[in-house]
């Protein structure tokens, strides 16, 4: 090693490649997300999908209110920022006037399954032909850790400081299973992003959902069960363990509905 000239060592070669950004679809700005947060990962893989499928010129996205409210600062595809919970209504407006474009929403659990439940259910029930990317981290991230509709029983949040009490605060909501019952819904799958295999499968699911939208099969939803280290007050690794051991026990991974299938 001693005779190597480090000044001139260029590691930017294909065989040294361990990490690559989709350069055309992910803007070159640092994410504001907390270290270890899955929002960054899901942004990146969805932009990889857009670049690989060459759909970045044919897709319009809707950002929610939640930690990913600034998604349009990172995703280099046309975007609209929607009011809290209204992403599926905004996406309906977009898709109806541009039926030949691809449309997606990117929403947290509070946005999609609390304040926006009506818009989500009715867009699904109309079989609106767009993709919903649903980030289920079991907590309200942006507003600093309040209880979400998907918060687990007994889970401590700032508004369930003694643990979520089913008797007074209701049950964690499996909105994906609920939506899968609707005939307008083509594809519902639950994936995760806490490990490499999960990330790969999530990416695959996103690709499939885009294919289904191209075929005009109807409403597609890809749920990604994720972490929120900051509000779980854990290190990123601890929060991933929480996802694996606690969240996935209640929110099992896998396809919930596939086109033409169950």
């Amino acid at each position, binding site marked *: 090693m001693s005779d190597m000239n480090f000044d001139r060592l260029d590691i930017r070669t294909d065989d040294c490649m361990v990490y690559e950004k989709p350069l055309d679809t992910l803007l070159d700005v640092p994410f504001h997300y907390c270290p270890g947060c899955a929002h960054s990962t899901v942004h990146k893989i969805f932009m990889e999908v857009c670049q690989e499928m060459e759909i970045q*010129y044919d897709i319009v996205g809707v950002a929610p209110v939640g930690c990913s409210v600034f998604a349009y600062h990172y995703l280099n595809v046309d975007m609209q*920022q929607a009011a809290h919970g209204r992403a599926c209504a905004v996406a309906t407006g977009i898709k109806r*006037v541009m039926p030949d474009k691809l449309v997606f929403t990117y929403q947290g659990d509070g946005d999609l399954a609390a304040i926006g439940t009506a818009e989500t259910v009715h867009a699904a029930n109309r079989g609106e032909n767009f993709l919903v990317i649903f980030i289920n981290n079991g907590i309200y991230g942006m507003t600093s850790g309040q209880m979400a509709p998907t918060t687990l029983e007994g889970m401590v949040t700032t508004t369930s400081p003694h643990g979520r009490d089913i008797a007074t605060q209701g049950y964690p909501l499996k909105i994906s299973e609920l939506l899968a019952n609707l005939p307008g819904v083509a594809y519902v799958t639950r994936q995760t992003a806490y490990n490499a295999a999960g990330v790969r499968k999530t990416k695959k699911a996103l690709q499939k959902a885009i294919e289904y939208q191209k075929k005009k099969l109807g409403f597609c939803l890809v749920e990604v069960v994720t972490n929120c280290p900051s509000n779980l007050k854990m290190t990123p690794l601890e929060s991933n363990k929480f996802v694996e051991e606690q969240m996935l026990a209640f929110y099992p991974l896998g396809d919930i509905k596939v086109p033409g299938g169950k």
Partner: protein
Amino acid sequence: MGEIRLMKGNEALAEAMIRAGCDAYFGYPITPQSEVLEYLSIDATKRTGMVVLQAESEVAAINMIYGAAGCGRRVMTTSSSPGISLMQEGLSYIASAGLPCVVANVNRGGPGLGTIQPSQGDYFQSVKGGGHGDYHLFVLAPSSVQEMVDFVREGFDIAEKYRTPVMILSDGAVGQMMEKVELFDQMPRKTEFPDWATTGRKRGQDRTYITSLFIKPEKMEMINLNLQAKYQAMIENEVRYQSFHLDDCEYIFTGYGLGARICQKAMEMGREKGYKIGLIRPITLFPFPTTIFNEMASKVKGILDVELNAGQMVEDVRLSVEGKTKVDFYGRMGGMIPSPDEILNAFEEKFINGGAK
């Protein structure tokens, strides 16, 4: 001369929407304006290809409007008071994001679920903001079925010129009554869309986005200053009103929409009795015709403002006259409509029988 038809206000408005080349309508049924969605559902899509969709709520409808307007399309929704209340959050977002659209409120009596009878109780909500933050809607007040037609086309033009939400503030009477109307010819739907629209990223460029979120106060203040500059331009260029007998009048009746129509009759009856009464009917409620009221204030003995509410526009009339003349108010509420006799009596009581000086 365009096609002449006998039409109900709500249906005329819907017909005008189709003919104005509207790309999409999203709405939710509510009396007294459900005819709009019903009329469009018959064959609007067949005629022009426009989207007509019954939303699950007014909340959803206004957000569908946001999405479609953000794609640079001509879009419109309609509702009545309780539904318009539900749209306020969306309207605030639309104003902030600078999206053009037209919204019609066929005003019914409130507050609360209220009554389905006509009212003008939503003046404050329409003119002063309604939703959160410093914004205005551009507000047009039709007083006839003909204006229900004309203001749709003109509303779209204003909305697109200023990238602003436009409100057609009508009421249950104008929406339900039948009158002769002249319709304009079918206009083509747009085929080209503005640069700011999110129609898919253009090759060789970065993405376009639509937002109302500007976290840095310096930036948010700039956005507000731009909005205020836009409102100032409307005040300078777009004020509209109709007037009668301003050359010889000693008193002025004022009101908007249905209220002005009844005032016109009361004015004619008053003139027969020898009272020199004129009339100012604001057509744009925002921007308000402040100047004409201010000019006339020093020439008349008083102004009687008549509304189907507890006295809302009268505040703008008072601000306009700057104390230079007496301004009094007569109104009925909760779906009750004042008769011309009633108005003339109120006028005599307040201004003639010892009230004026």
